[in-house]
């Protein structure tokens, strides 16, 4: 972890309704950032919005010395972010957090993303390439599919409205797949109810699962204890850990889902 940097915006364009792809010039950070890590970004002016917003790495473009973050416009922070233009400086802190635990012993992995939760998984898909099956779920409009396919050929798509791929939830196709195939580990990112369903499916299939959690953050670096989430301690007791520093990636079995 180093101080915040002013990075240059290379591109900031919509890739689906409300979803933007932000390319930043950051050769040095590209070298260091791990899949699943995030950046804490000053989206607005001085005082409004006040706090930084956490956005994960989507993927790096090593040759260009660039990294790409993909975000959905949600409220004022991301709205401000979406108005940054090429050439603008952007105040970025990070990479932060632990990122996914990647080992060379994983021979077959599943990567499961829902909605904007797909964004943080693209770099990870690149790490596992052919060893991964990627499950991507959308409400209707899809995005980042090409980027995923370039990195990891086996991409299965589910849409709630059935416009592309399987009609229904991505967790359905995952659960089905888990019955027939064996994975060394499952990586998941998306809305909490989806993660909970993935965790449940993995528990049943006796597969280890890493989930990337979200929580409202203030500092983003571990100092304020503002982003706590409850995990089970080794003795089964509940304990609060920091999503920003101890996470955002946790083993699904640690997480207190019904909290």
């Amino acid at each position, binding site marked *: 972890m180093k101080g915040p940097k002013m990075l240059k915006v290379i591109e900031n364009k919509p890739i689906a309704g409300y979803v933007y792809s932000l390319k930043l010039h950051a050769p040095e950070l590209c070298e260091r950032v791990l899949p699943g890590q995030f950046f804490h970004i000053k989206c607005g002016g001085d005082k409004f919005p006040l706090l930084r917003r956490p956005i994960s790495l989507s993927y790096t473009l090593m040759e260009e010395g660039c990294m790409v973050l993909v975000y959905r416009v949600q409220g004022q922070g991301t709205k401000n972010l979406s108005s940054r233009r090429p050439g603008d400086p952007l105040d970025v802190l990070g990479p932060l957090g632990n990122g996914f635990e990647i080992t060379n012993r994983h021979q077959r992995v599943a990567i499961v993303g829902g909605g904007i939760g797909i964004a943080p998984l693209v770099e990870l898909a690149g790490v596992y390439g052919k060893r991964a099956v990627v499950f991507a779920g959308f409400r209707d409009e899809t995005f980042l599919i090409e980027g995923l396919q370039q990195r990891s050929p086996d991409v299965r798509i589910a849409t709630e409205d059935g416009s592309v791929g399987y009609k229904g939830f991505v967790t359905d196709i995952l659960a089905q797949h888990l019955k027939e195939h064996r994975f060394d580990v499952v990586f998941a990112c998306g809305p909490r109810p989806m993660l909970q369903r993935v965790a449940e499916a993995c528990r049943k299939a006796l597969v280890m699962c890493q989930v990337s959690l979200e929580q409202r953050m203030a500092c983003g*670096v571990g100092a*304020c*204890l503002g982003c*706590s989430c409850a995990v089970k301690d080794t003795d089964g007791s509940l*304990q609060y850990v920091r999503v920003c520093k101890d996470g955002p990636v946790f083993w699904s079995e640690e997480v207190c889902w019904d909290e």
Partner: protein
Amino acid sequence: MNRVDMSVSIAGLKLKNPVMTASGTFGFGEEYGEFYELKRLGAVVVKGITLKPRQGNPPPRTCETPAGMLNSVGLQNPGVDYFLEKELPRLLDKGASVIVNISGATVDEYCAMMEKLEPSGVAAVELNLSCPNVREGGIAFGLRPDAVYDVTRRVKECGDRPVIVKLSPNVTDIVEIASAAKEGGGDAVSLINTLLAMDIDINTRKPVLGNTYGGLSGPAVKPVALRMVHQVAEALDIPVIGMGGILDWRDAVQFILAGARAVAVGTANFVNPLAPVDIIDGIEKYAMQQGFSSVEAMVGALL
């Protein structure tokens, strides 16, 4: 131009500059210590600790409000013993002046902590009086002058370390409360702590914070903080550590002009991790431009 004497004497301490961190926004210095050397700060005020470890409040614990934020961390901390054993040595190694913010549910708990801290290398102790007092049916110590007087006096009796009394702004008369801290023997007062507040999500129809209420901090509260600092500094002869919404050196200068002898930077750390050191530099430049030879000459220098 001549350099400015940045040092300040406060509560019997000589600080190399007037800029501290605000308790609870800086952890035990570990995280922000990666951005710059902690010994550059006037003092590091560490996160509030209690006699026993505490788990804190259920999430969500933070949310943003217009030009401010709410927090309801609920004093999650590993307890005073762990602090003395694991955190303090690391901080002292780095050359930091360490002020320990302590919270108790009873006066005895404050005293017990003071006794444990007394023989350690801490520079001073800051009493956080915003926590509910179990003896008084959960009313925070900081809301009643007699309670403030009592806990200050008792803690002072437990040791020789300077005692800074951190006041809650959620009171009718801040001067009366500060005066009680002074009468009780407090060496300085810190103000302000957070304003009790809440936010509501109209989609879920629930309070945003897991704990319903939380503390408001950040630029939004600065005008209230400045007023309280000004009131106390005008009325009483006790050093004031000013805080509440300081984002940059201009804000810090306002507090010093209002009468604060030192300032603490809280929420701003989250916005700009380098805020405290940027602020030190900014104060120095301002003092130079305005022809002050020392920061102490700036204290209360409203025209």
